């Protein structure tokens, strides 16, 4: 891989990678059984340079911000490289947000350029607030012929002639603004520096080396911090190949493993469980004799892999299973949310190591990762090289808040010094997660101190962000909480949201109000819905500026109720 100490920015490191491995394949874009494109590092450069030139010709200055809203595909990476080449600041937005949310974050980030897929652009154009869009240049990919563009330009035609000027950045300069959440209430735009990314990349590739010939399967969108790091920066600076798959359907994921002989893949717990389900269904079709034989082989593999993985041996012992995964798989990485230890163990016993990790955008993606020395299903691994992890205010079981210090920790929250000061204290990032370090240095997680939930799909949901959806409810006041924030339990799964209602008149929930809550809930995507409600008979404690004192309210509720008080919706 490249020696990243020598580079001061993502732009210069990526530029060196494109020159270092000109004939290696860097990108394959597959859609179901079709292959949309395949690019060498030289071809990738040739696709990005005219875009960089056109951006410069259009007056895109260094340090200006450019947003990308796209699904998982090659043009995402080409566009991002062109932005870094120009010294721009990348704003990767989650394509799964609504168009209104996209507009809010575009405004907050002050993006001057927007690069977006056609179907997402159509939704943005039709959204309320579109007229306030400030981006001067909008580039749209995959526009059907003859379609109206509403002032935008076709990405494919936005090409400049001649060599653009490479703009070098310093390590401490901003590389990106990544929104960890905050669309409805207070946007949390994490400002990441070039140093954050370069340091994280070195730490990850020290533990899990990539090289030319490695095939990394990317199914998470590249706006996802993990995919951005491993499926772009990490793979490219090692000369590896990124295979983008534009569908999450299990049958095509299985096919991609075989067709492209995948070496590594990052996934979220939900997809890992789906792969587990698929394998178990196949095992169920085996005859009793074959099933017994399989169980015996798995037991042998488990015994042999007790201290560390033995990939070659596992591929021999459980040949059929490994062939179904392409025969070259070295590890799956799982993160973004809590993974059940039983699922991790299931794959490890099959000779497919799943590196379980823990991280957050604010920390520059990963904080800890399992190194298989030996495999532990009950922890999220050890701190990555360069990460200092401490537990503060531990209770009698040693469980307290996880805090982190590292060169990978973000610079600050964009335009929010108060939230930055509350989150980064004396150089330590306060994660809001509760954990314990064991005597082997592994981190175990036990829930959250902060008012938020993480879905199995790896989405952070902050209750404040969905309160907008309940505005105008016929109640005196309301507040949304993570149920675990009100009634803490030491668990990282099955997290729920609740809405607390202070009624205006009746002392009990009426059927009419219940139906309205259900109706309002339906307008939210499934992962943002509240699971239950609680009727509260006192006024909410508020600050002088009339903001709800959430911690105080949660404390009041906790003092006199338990979870049983929650009315299911």
């Amino acid at each position, binding site marked *: 891989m490249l020696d990243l100490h020598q580079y001061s920015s993502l732009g210069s490191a990526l530029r060196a990678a494109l020159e270092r491995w000109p004939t290696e394949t860097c990108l394959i874009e597959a859609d179901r059984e079709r292959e949309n494109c395949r690019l060498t590092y030289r071809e990738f450069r040739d696709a990005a340079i005219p875009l960089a030139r056109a951006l410069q010709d259009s007056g895109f200055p260094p340090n200006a911000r450019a947003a990308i809203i796209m699904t998982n595909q090659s043009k995402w990476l080409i566009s991002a490289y062109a932005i870094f080449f120009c010294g721009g600041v990348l704003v990767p937005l989650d394509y799964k947000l609504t168009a209104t949310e996209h507009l809010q974050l575009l405004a907050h980030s002050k993006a001057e350029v927007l690069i977006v897929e056609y179907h997402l652009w159509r939704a943005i154009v039709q959204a309320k607030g579109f007229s306030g869009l400030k981006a001067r240049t909008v580039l749209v990919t995959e526009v059907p012929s003859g379609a109206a563009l509403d002032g935008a330009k076709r990405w494919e035609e936005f090409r400049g002639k001649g060599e653009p000027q490479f703009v070098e950045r310093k390590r401490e300069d901003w590389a990106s603004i990544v929104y960890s959440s905050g669309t409805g209430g207070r946007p949390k735009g994490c400002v990441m520096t070039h140093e954050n990314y370069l340091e994280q990349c070195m730490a990850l590739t020290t533990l899990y080396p990539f090289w030319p010939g490695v095939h990394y399967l990317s199914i998470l969108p590249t706006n996802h911090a993990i995919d951005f790091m491993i499926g772009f920066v990490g793979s490219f600076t090692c000369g590896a190949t990124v295979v983008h798959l534009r569908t999450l*359907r299990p049958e095509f994921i299985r096919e991609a493993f075989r067709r492209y002989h995948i070496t590594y893949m990052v996934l979220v717990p939900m997809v890992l469980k789906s792969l587990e389900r698929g394998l178990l269904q196949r095992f169920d079709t085996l005859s009793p004799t074959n099933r017994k034989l399989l169980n015996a082989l798995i037991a042998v593999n488990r015994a042999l892999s007790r201290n560390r993985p033995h990939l070659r041996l596992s591929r021999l012992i459980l040949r059929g299973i490994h062939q179904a995964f392409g025969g070259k798989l070295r590890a799956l990485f799982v993160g973004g949310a809590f993974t059940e230890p039983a699922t991790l163990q299931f794959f490890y016993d099959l000779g497919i190591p799943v590196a379980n990790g823990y991280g957050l955008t604010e920390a520059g993606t990963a904080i800890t990762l399992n190194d298989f020395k030996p495999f532990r299903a009950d922890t999220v691994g050890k701190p990555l090289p360069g990460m200092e992890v401490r537990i503060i205010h531990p209770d009698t079981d040693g469980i307290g808040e996880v805090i982190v210090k590292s060169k990978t920790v973000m610079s600050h929250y964009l335009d929010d010094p108060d939230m930055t000061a509350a989150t980064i204290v004396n150089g330590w990032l306060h994660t809001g997660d509760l954990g314990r370090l064991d005597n082997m240095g592994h981190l175990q997680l036990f829930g959250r101190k902060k008012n938020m939930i993480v879905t199995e799909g790896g989405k952070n949901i902050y209750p404040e962000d969905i309160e907008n959806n309940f505005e105008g409810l016929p109640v005196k006041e309301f507040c949304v909480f993570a149920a675990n924030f009100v009634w803490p339990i030491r668990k990282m799964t099955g997290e729920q949201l609740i809405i607390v209602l202070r009624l205006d008149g009746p002392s009990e929930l009426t059927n009419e109000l219940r139906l309205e809550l259900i109706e309002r809930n339906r307008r939210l995507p499934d992962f943002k819905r509240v699971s239950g409600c609680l009727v509260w008979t006192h006024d909410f404690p508020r600050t002088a500026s009339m903001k709800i004192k959430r911690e105080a309210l949660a404390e009041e509720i906790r003092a006199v109720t338990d979870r049983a008080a929650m009315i299911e919706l």
Partner: protein
Amino acid sequence: MSSLQATTEEVLQLAASHFKVPRETLSPEDDFFKKLGIDSLQALDLLTRLENHFHIELPDYELQGVSDFRTLAERIQARL
């Protein structure tokens, strides 16, 4: 070409048979995530079954923001 109503009915029947619930328990305006208790990947399974039935291809993003049978049927109808 079948009507939206007929397409919606076919979607409901297929969903009922795929997830093994009585057809009469499902109605067009139902939220399929809640009604069937499924996650987004299980919803993709249903989408694959619908594609095979209607002989169309629905990109994953077509399901983005869609959570009720009627809207799903409209997306299918647009491609018939």
